[in-house]
């Protein structure tokens, strides 16, 4: 089996300061990988470097494209990369406002990616938007409402629908449950888990919440000061951490 994503020695510097460095891993279709670490550990820098929002200073991010097989997304042309990010990739921001168009209706938000890849039939766009609202548990009577009228949890679910409507294969998530109430988080986690399984999605989830990765991620990567200090099976890393920092991290949590 070809890995969906092969990350080889990726490094991103901020001047002399290390953003992240020496990161390598393979992600296979259907796998969910968590990246944990405290603020400033380089996990968001890594995510953005992988998703093409930042250009890594070193290394390769090889994605198994539908058309041409494995291609290094760092060196591919910008139009190709942007096309990827509209079709096969999705990015779920921590703040839904960063990932939604707040002045456009929920239906328009979901439909945008369809129209971006050439769908020109209003009826079918709307039908798929309604279908996706249902899948993320938003009443389809809200299809013409703007996201500014939605609660935080609904906005986050709308963002997910907007991202998944084109059937991406790889989803990047930056603290997807951050800033939400615990009960809303649980609902979102349940939803994400279901979608990951149904659609066979691969995902990379950055979070500082160990409970979130325990429930969502198959594998875990622990970062500190820009370096990966430990990686492995999620429950193994959490229950039998090998690195001192991970042990500290796990023991600092009130209860996972």
């Amino acid at each position, binding site marked *: 089996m070809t890995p969906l994503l092969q990350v080889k020695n990726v490094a991103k510097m901020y001047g002399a300061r290390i953003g992240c460095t020496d990161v390598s891993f393979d992600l296979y279709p259907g796998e969910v990988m968590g990246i944990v670490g405290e603020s400033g550990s380089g996990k968001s820098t890594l995510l953005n470097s992988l998703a093409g929002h930042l250009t890594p200073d070193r290394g390769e991010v090889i994605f198994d494209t539908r058309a041409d097989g494995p291609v290094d997304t760092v060196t591919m042309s910008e139009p190709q990369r942007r096309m990827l990010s509209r079709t096969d990739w999705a990015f779920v921001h921590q703040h839904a406002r960063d990932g939604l168009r707040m002045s456009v209706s929920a239906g328009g938000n979901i439909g*945008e990616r369809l*129209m971006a890849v050439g769908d020109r039939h209003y009826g079918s766009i709307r039908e798929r938007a309604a279908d996706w609202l249902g899948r993320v548990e938003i009443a389809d009577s809200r299809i013409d409402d703007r996201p500014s009228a939605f609660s935080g949890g609904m906005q986050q679910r709308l963002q997910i629908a907007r991202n998944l409507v084109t059937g991406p294969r790889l989803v990047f998530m930056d603290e997807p449950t951050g800033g939400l109430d615990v009960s809303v988080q649980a609902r979102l986690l349940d939803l994400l888990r279901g979608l990951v399984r149904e659609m066979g999605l691969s995902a990379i989830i950055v979070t500082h919440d160990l409970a979130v990765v325990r429930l969502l991620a198959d594998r875990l990567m622990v970062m500190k000061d820009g370096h990966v200090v430990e990686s492995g099976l999620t429950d193994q890393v959490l229950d039998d951490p090998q690195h001192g920092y991970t042990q500290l991290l796990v023991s600092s949590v009130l209860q996972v």
Partner: protein
Amino acid sequence: MSDYNFAYLDEQTKRMIRRAILKGLAVPGYQVPFASREMPMPYGWGTGGVQVSAATLTPEDTLKVIDQGADDTTNAVSIRKFFERTAGVATTEETAKASVIQTRHRIPEAELSEDQILVYQVPIPEPLRFLEPRETETRKMHALQEYGLMHVKLYEDISQHGAIATAYAYPVKVEGRYVMDPSPIPKFDNPKMEMAAIQLFGAGREQRIYAVPPYTKVVSLDFEDYPFEASKADHPCDLCGAEDSYLDEVILDDAGNRMFVCSDTDYCRSRREAGHSGRLGEEAA
């Protein structure tokens, strides 16, 4: 006319603007940045169009200026006087006799010919601005032909109004490449943009010039199930009886009486002179 350089602008400025125009013609629909000058009129009164006209005019030209189709509104009159004074060119109200036509918000009803130039005044040249406020991003979207957002705007129209409610400044795709704002002309005029004359667009405040060369393909964006329609008020002109022209609605009194008249005053006048007459044609004449 003696104290002004021909057509107000200095020769260097006109050369700069002509280079932008030529580039615009070479890349139809592409917005060429130019160093817009301060003009002796406020923004919104056609400073972009005036600069393009100034760079286009030759002493032999005959100029016509229309505002919403009419030759006799304030904006049209003042710009026409401006060029009479600073360029000394002949002016006309007859579409067929003009070699350069500066327009705000309309395309003349009469078909234009290959020896004519139509200059549009443009308030906001960026069709993507409605949904994407970042200039860096809209430029990238044009460069990469990422025009899905344009349809989001039309989608919003249909979802809110049941039809594409955009009635003016209706976005078009030029020669299968750039999406362009045709300036706030009614969408009724959109099909006319595939014409024999050169079309130049000037946005003074936004400092952009763009162009559509003669016989260029101009397609109005739409959905398969909501095709583009060049609509107008469903009436004949009350003065000249024309059924094919774009109409203005005029309220006549407090009792709700109204009339519909051609917005193109020259077209209406020439039809009446040729003997056509509408519902109120006799008494008005």
